[in-house]
């Protein structure tokens, strides 16, 4: 009876298991990243996609996602201007093989962010994700009023002064 139950349980287990390889993804910021990144800096994230199964992972696609998590401004970020390396495709990842990927990005806007790598293989019903990595981007003053104000007021004032000077010289000649 016990033997039959064990055999039944094993069969059920085998039937319930997915027909795709199992993957694990790690994600960490690159060691060379600045300690306090600010707008305009370049960051890299390093991930390793490992096939921990006995079967190959076929039709593998991995991609990076970025989410802004500032309170009141939670939203996914369009990576259009942040990164040109948003995804990769790999035809097959052999059993036990590991795929190392770098994900570079340029920090366009200040705020708090979370980054995650997702991967899906052919036939799988759900993606596999890495742990979330949090980072903060310091604001850089791209609007420096101490530069703009003198120019905005000074240039017209200078040209107006030139025009007045010219007018006075003309009147003097007359």
């Amino acid at each position, binding site marked *: 009876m016990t033997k039959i139950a064990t055999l039944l349980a094993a069969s059920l287990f085998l039937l319930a298991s997915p027909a795709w390889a199992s993957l694990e993804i790690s994600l960490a910021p690159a060691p060379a990243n600045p300690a306090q990144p600010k707008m*305009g800096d370049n960051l890299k994230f390093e991930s390793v996609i490992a096939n921990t199964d006995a079967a190959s992972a076929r039709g593998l696609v991995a991609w990076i996602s970025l989410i802004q998590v500032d309170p009141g401004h939670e939203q996914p970020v369009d990576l259009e201007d942040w990164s040109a390396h948003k995804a990769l495709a790999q035809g097959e990842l052999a059993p036990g093989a590991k795929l190392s990927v770098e994900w570079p990005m340029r920090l366009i*806007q200040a705020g708090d962010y979370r980054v995650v790598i997702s991967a899906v293989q052919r036939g799988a019903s759900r993606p596999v994700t890495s742990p979330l990595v949090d980072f903060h981007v310091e604001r850089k003053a791209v609007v420096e009023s101490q530069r703009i104000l003198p120019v905005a007021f000074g240039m017209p004032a200078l040209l107006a002064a030139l025009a007045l000077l010219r007018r006075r010289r003309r009147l003097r000649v007359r």
Partner: protein
Amino acid sequence: MSAALLLARKESAELVKSGRGLAWLLALSVALSALSLLLVSNTELSLLDNAQVVYMVMGTVTALGALLAVLLGADAIAGEKERGSLVPLLLAPLSTGDIVFGKIGGQLAAWAVAYLIALPYVWAVGSSGQNLGQAVAYLALFGTPVVLGFGFYALGLSARFGSVRGALAASLITLILLASPLVLGPGLRQSAVGRIFDAVNPFAAALNSFDSAVIDSQPLSMQLGRLGVALVWLALAFWFARRSVQALEI
């Protein structure tokens, strides 16, 4: 000194001494100051938004430069005719090329001064953002052929119409037509007709290059086609101006 250079120096001096040039440069400066002060009021800009503003300043400078070229070009022949000073100039030993290059020389000087006036604004707005060097270089590289092309075109119309009003109206209509797709928005520009128009429009070529270089950080090698459009525009407009002045009869 060549006759063309003599004429160009006279045109430049006239702009300064007659007050028209200074008035126009003052108007340009006020427009750019207004744009910059709007920017100062917004402190939450991202790098991208800042690049957008630099792009806007570059576009404004190019548009105002083209407008200035049209104003000067429309007056170049017809204005002198209306003031009575054209015939003595045509009776001097000047070739068609001397007259065309001399008149454009004055416009080139005006554009050069407008560009120099714009530089502090570009620096003030863009120095903390991205691609400031590209902004300065592209404004000169693309702005100059577009602006001078409008100058040649208006000069040709001035010679053909013989009236400042007529030449100015025709030039402004052309300028507005070439600038219209940018006002209509990206949706209309995605149609087949819109894409063709965009591809041959020198104004669009300049603005799209500014976008590519300053906002998208793309290299010059990707702008060569657009640079070609701007240079073809300049060549065609020069040819039109030369033919028009050559056929001029009093």
